[in-house]
């Protein structure tokens, strides 16, 4: 959910100008915001599952240190979504385990 109105910060008037694909589904996002923020805004919280037990993981530290929030982005695995900015046309995939490199398109 987005915080569109705020008593101190005012209205958020940014346009959702970036269209990204998350596990094949279109998500409207703001260019430059972290991928994690764009996903939380539409209620997606499970970003990957662990290699051995398949347990779910999501955003934890939000400053690029814990690596819990990594996903596969444009074919590259283990991208820290809390510090990687959204670009129009990005393809984001829930990561299974350590992920794997995809072929260049």
């Amino acid at each position, binding site marked *: 959910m*987005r915080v569109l109105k705020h008593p101190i910060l005012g209205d958020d008037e940014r346009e959702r100008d970036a269209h990204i694909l998350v596990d094949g589904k279109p998500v409207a996002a703001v260019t430059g915001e972290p991928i994690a923020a764009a996903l939380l805004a539409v209620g997606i919280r499970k970003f990957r599952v662990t290699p051995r037990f398949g347990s779910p993981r999501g955003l934890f*530290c939000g400053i690029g240190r814990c690596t819990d929030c990594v996903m596969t982005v444009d074919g590259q695995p283990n991208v820290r979504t809390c510090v990687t900015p959204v670009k129009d046309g990005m393809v984001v995939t829930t990561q299974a385990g350590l992920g794997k490199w995809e072929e260049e398109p």
Partner: protein
Amino acid sequence: MRKTQAAVIGAGPAGLAAAIEIARAGGSVTVIDENAKPGGQLFKQIHKFFGSRDHRAGVRGIHIGEQLLAETRELNVEILLDSPVYALFADRTVGYIHDGKEGSLKAEKIIIAAGAAENILAFPGSTLPGVMGAGAAQTMINVHRVLPGKKILMIGSGNVGLIVSYQLMQAGADVAALIEAAPRIGGYGVHAAKIRRAGVPIYLSHTVKGVLGTDQVEAVEIVELDSRWQPLAGSEKILAVDTLCLAVGLTPLTELAWLAGCEFAFVPGLGGHVPKHDLNMETTVPGVFIAGDISGVEEASTAMEEGRLAGTACAEALGLLDGPKAGELKAVIRQRLDALRTGPFGEGRRKAKESLIGLSGEGRS
């Protein structure tokens, strides 16, 4: 290889303040930061700061960040962003990565202002999506304008837990409760009163027993603690929340100081292992200074003063300021630091800092 008189690692309040002092004294200074934007954690602090007018009290953190950035622009301070530092070599060369390529910067003096990271707490379910640092939640709501959850339980009644609870409500979330393992509130009474007035119950002597949920947080089980911090059987309560925020302290980010070969001391009151340093913020490695949370977790206002102190001492060591002038400037900053380290909260930090500086020798005045 790039060259500079002073390299400052970290563009938060301490690093920017240090760089401003060096530039003001006429030195060349380069600030390096791994983030895409400068300001560290200042831009998520939308509340007004405490302290006196000298410390910009009553000004919101975001506006202090803007003021610091305006000063760095006026003084032509170079800031390298998106550049994580991975090495500090013995000849004071800083190794960093930018755009996938290695870079290096040869400096005469280095100031490490790397900050701190939030502590974690382990319990059944602590890895489920929806369990996160209070600072992470604060970044999401105040910087990125996204709510990390709708119904929130906060753990920890220090200032971070209290302030972030209030800010989550300002952003439109419902804070179900705040729990604290100690029998008393850790932060300022004024912050606790604000969230109590808003109807948030504060459970003292309570901790988390576990999080329930399959793919994300669905509920949290809390339990009361007795006077010996043991769970009281039968006192369990289940709170239906979708998010659990942890505000259980911070630990200095000291990796680069270890790499540089600094000697350390373990000071629990400052967040754990911290590099020994003297009254000039210089570590046991000559020419390597520290400032801000890496030298002991305190507040942004103290971080800025420490940055100014390290920057001024650095400018003196570079020969940019003569002894008497530098001494005068440093005395004023130290007075302001002492003023920030007063009261029931500051006093403990002042004593911890003094013991740390005592361990490191008197240093130059």
